[in-house]
């Protein structure tokens, strides 16, 4: 399965970015291949308006099964709720640690 994290930097040692729309970037983690891919989000971080909606579109294009972030705004939630992607909320911690919690079923589903 593919899990998308909002992240402050590259690699699974990075810290979770608590923002969704204005996250620094996204990390797409593939649990089968144990690989992680970095996706920049500069254009939405710098957008005056509509960061949430545009980030949601960008994320959907990556086709993840789950999203793990700190908070999702009303407009991004409205877009994401039309998909089958599951959203989990957690705090600003290392992604590898969050992944372990996710695997143990300890994360809260939005």
């Amino acid at each position, binding site marked *: 399965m593919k899990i998308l994290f909002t992240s402050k930097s590259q690699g699974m040692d990075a810290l979770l970015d608590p923002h969704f729309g204005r996250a620094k970037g996204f990390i797409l983690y593939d649990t089968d291949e144990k690989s992680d891919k970095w996706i920049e989000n500069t254009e939405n971080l710098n957008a005056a308006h509509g960061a949430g909606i545009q980030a949601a579109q960008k994320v959907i294009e990556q086709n993840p099964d789950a999203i793990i972030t700190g*908070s*999702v705004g009303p407009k991004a939630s409205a877009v994401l709720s039309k998909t089958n992607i599951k959203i989990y909320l957690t705090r600003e911690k290392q992604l590898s640690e969050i992944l372990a919690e996710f695997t143990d079923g300890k994360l809260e589903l939005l």
Partner: protein
Amino acid sequence: MKEIVILSGKGGSGKTSLATSFAALGKEKILLADYDVDAADMHILLEAKHYKEEKFYSGFEAVINQEKCIQCGNCKILCQFDAIEEKDNRFYINPIDCEGCGYCEMVCPEKAIKMKDAEVGNFYVSNTRFKNVLFHAKLNIGADNSGKLVSYVKKQAKKYAEEEKIDYLLSDGPPGVGCPAISSVTGANYVVIVTETSLSGFSDMKRLHELVNNFKIPCGCIINKADLNLKVKEEILEYLEKNDISLLGEIPYNKSFPESIRQLKTVNEYDKNMAVLIKNIWEKIYKTNL
């Protein structure tokens, strides 16, 4: 560090009057941020003197390269905001009207129009007369507040609070429930909803609560001008009860609010009776967020 954001939905319900009063009570123990970048005013009442200043950029502004321009006038015909002016057969962008949409850049046959980052104002870090450090900004004429600007002020303030080990960030939010308000709520620990007993005050409060609920952030409510419309007040109280929102306090309509502003004082500096009421409310907020 915990962030407490004061919001109302409807403007003029008493957000800033209360935020500045809380600032006077909290002194250096609380850090302040003013997210109402559009019409920032906390710094006026708190006589903030800035020690740091930066330029503030948000959105775009079109620029015409006069050497490349062939005066076809396509941009002027197509601009939806009438932001392009013609003078002596040359075309100019009026930066106040330009919304930065980029349509003109797209239609220019000579690629003479480029979008550049719009400088919208200044960002400041200041000391207030109550020894709080205040993060705020001031926009140029015609510039808009945006989620980007709010999140920038927030990020800087939070960073400072972490570095200086200040436990509380008290933020005065913008009116409305749009982009800047959404950015204000993002990452906050507690929201204080200031409402008034008018139909629009109550209606906006419900919209704001919906927004805060989306983020699952706990909130409390202050009913200002509580004795103006008792029927609406009953409805507000019912709503609070039904939605499990704690009532932080009720403030009767009081002329000290406008009068204190006129004299550049906080409400609790100006009116001793109000000071008692406001102190009780602040202690409730403080205790909730220990």
